[in-house]
């Protein structure tokens, strides 16, 4: 690094401006490199199978929606809708359950915290550090004996346990942003708990709830291990379907890429839409 002063606000002379331009160019280059595999995935998904698997790559090949048509079962007879619906319902229901459980818990841990609240926080976080495989077998056996195998409800419970600790941490940090003085002033003025929650707490934490839900939804949507071990024909999720897609169909690159695009699309759209909130959520609320 050259020992010159330059801030974005105060470009000094020609050399500094040139260096800034070069760094901007470097950022663009890095961005392109990271983005390239995704572009390649989309491009391949739009090629005919004969153009998809070529060496060197055929960039100018004609585009077609064939891969997508086949993914949605036009020729294979395997519909992706049941797995997509399973993924969607498991993710949605577990997200709702996480919210129902985590918001009161976070309330008890932030506004008027219970005694030893940090211990409770660490308990929640430490459950994230226990590898999930270590509890998988008993869960499998219990599910098998109670007829819960291959059932979306089982995934809902497990995804909830997977996301609840993170959600408690996130919600606590969002609730901690509610100014205590205002809460006290409101209760002195005679506002009851429901009023305080609805008029003061809710508006402050609503974006936090949105971020928490989004992250829980994404993690549930992405999950593979539980779904692979505990589901089969009926309750298989989109990621399981995707892994099976390759083996059952043989390798058809364009079709596989089309499938990958379709299954990633909901997460991509949601993630792009909520970039800033995503960061705050992913860092457990430690980053404002």
């Amino acid at each position: 690094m050259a020992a010159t002063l330059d801030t974005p606000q105060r470009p000094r002379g020609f050399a500094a401006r040139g260096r800034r331009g070069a760094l901007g160019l470097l950022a663009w280059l890095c961005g392109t490199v990271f983005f390239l595999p995704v572009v390649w995935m989309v491009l391949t998904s739009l090629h005919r199978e004969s153009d998809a698997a070529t060496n060197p790559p055929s960039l100018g090949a004609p585009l077609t929606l064939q891969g997508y048509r086949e993914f949605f079962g036009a020729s294979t007879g395997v519909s992706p809708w049941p797995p997509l619906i399973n993924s969607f319902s498991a993710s949605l229901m577990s997200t709702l359950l996480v919210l129902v459980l985590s918001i009161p818990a976070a309330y008890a841990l932030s506004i008027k915290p219970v005694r030893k609240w940090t211990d409770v926080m660490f308990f929640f976080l430490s459950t994230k550090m226990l590898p999930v495989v270590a509890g998988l077998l008993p869960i499998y056996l219990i599910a098998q004996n109670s007829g819960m195998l291959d059932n979306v409800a089982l995934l809902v419970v497990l995804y909830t346990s997977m996301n609840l600790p993170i959600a408690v941490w996130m919600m606590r940090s969002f609730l901690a942003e509610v100014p205590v003085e205002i809460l006290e002033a409101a209760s002195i003025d005679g506002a009851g708990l429901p009023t305080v929650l609805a008029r003061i707490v809710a508006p402050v934490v609503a974006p936090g709830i949105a971020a928490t839900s989004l992250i829980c939804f994404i993690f549930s949507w992405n999950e593979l291990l539980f779904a692979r071990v505990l589901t089969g024909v009926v309750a298989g999720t989109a990621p399981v379907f995707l892994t099976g897609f390759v083996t059952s169909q043989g390798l058809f690159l364009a079709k596989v890429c089309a499938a990958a695009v379709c299954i990633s699309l909901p997460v991509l759209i949601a993630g792009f839409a909520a970039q800033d909130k995503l960061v705050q959520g992913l860092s457990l609320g430690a980053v404002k």
Partner: protein
Amino acid sequence: MTITHSLTRRARAPQTARRTTPPRQSRGAWARRAPLLPALIFMIVVTQLPFVGTVVISFMRWNALDPDNKAFAGLQNYKEAVTDPQLRSSLLTTVTLTVSVVLVSLVMGLGLALLLDRQFRGRGIVRTMLITPFLVVPVASALLWKHALYNATYGLINGSLTWLWSLFGSDSPPQPDWLSSLPLMSVEASLIWQWTPFMMLILLAGLQSRPMDAVEAARVDGATTWQVFRYLTFPHLRRYLELAALLGSIYVVQNFDAVFTLTGGGLGTANLPYTVYETFYQAHDYGQASAEGVVVVLCSLLVGSFALRTVSSLLREETR
């Protein structure tokens, strides 16, 4: 239950300043605890009780393919797990994989965050492009790397090599089979691609939260760019670096999707989660899989207690 409990105790030790509530009437205390209980009970039932089950099964001789031969086996499973060269190698793989992925993506994420912290044209677009790898569903990204990028005959990497070589008039470009010649590195590269954006996001937020008046003052006093970074930016970023490393490790240690999809655990890429999965799901050796699971938990306790200490310092800072 007991294990994580001792974990929380140990992590709590350095905790000095925190919000303390004076003891009150027990009815009030229970009213405060009530909202917490559903979540707490749910977590204990769903995550801690199964682990107790794992510990019990780990002392049993139990193979699902041989259901009549089910009995107490003492420490036999543990003896086999500890002496099993496969488990040892997967332990080593897990450590290598986690450390290299977390470190490399942390360093790259820092570099990218520093680049993106400046003003330049199209910054928002570059940021969005950089986030994308993190948002692709992990199985999809593993499939993408395996078939569209790494494939030896038509993958993008070798295809680009062919194209580059042909520019110089050569028709014998190198065409390595990435997944079989560099299996672990291939898995790592795909994971680094996936996790660098995550590190960048957290570090970028850290950079943007730094108090600019101190930076301005230092500049006025004649500090160089390097000095500002070394004495102001880096100390401020430290807790964000720790947080990013911690959260990244939690997820990378448990990685299953990439190993399962890219190599199927072959060629020395089987990590602990994959090995346990294999013993349980393919070999159906329940007793053995449970013992391996317990060993995995004991190992993650080592990492976990360190990680919790890091977080406890974060929380302490906040409550001060």
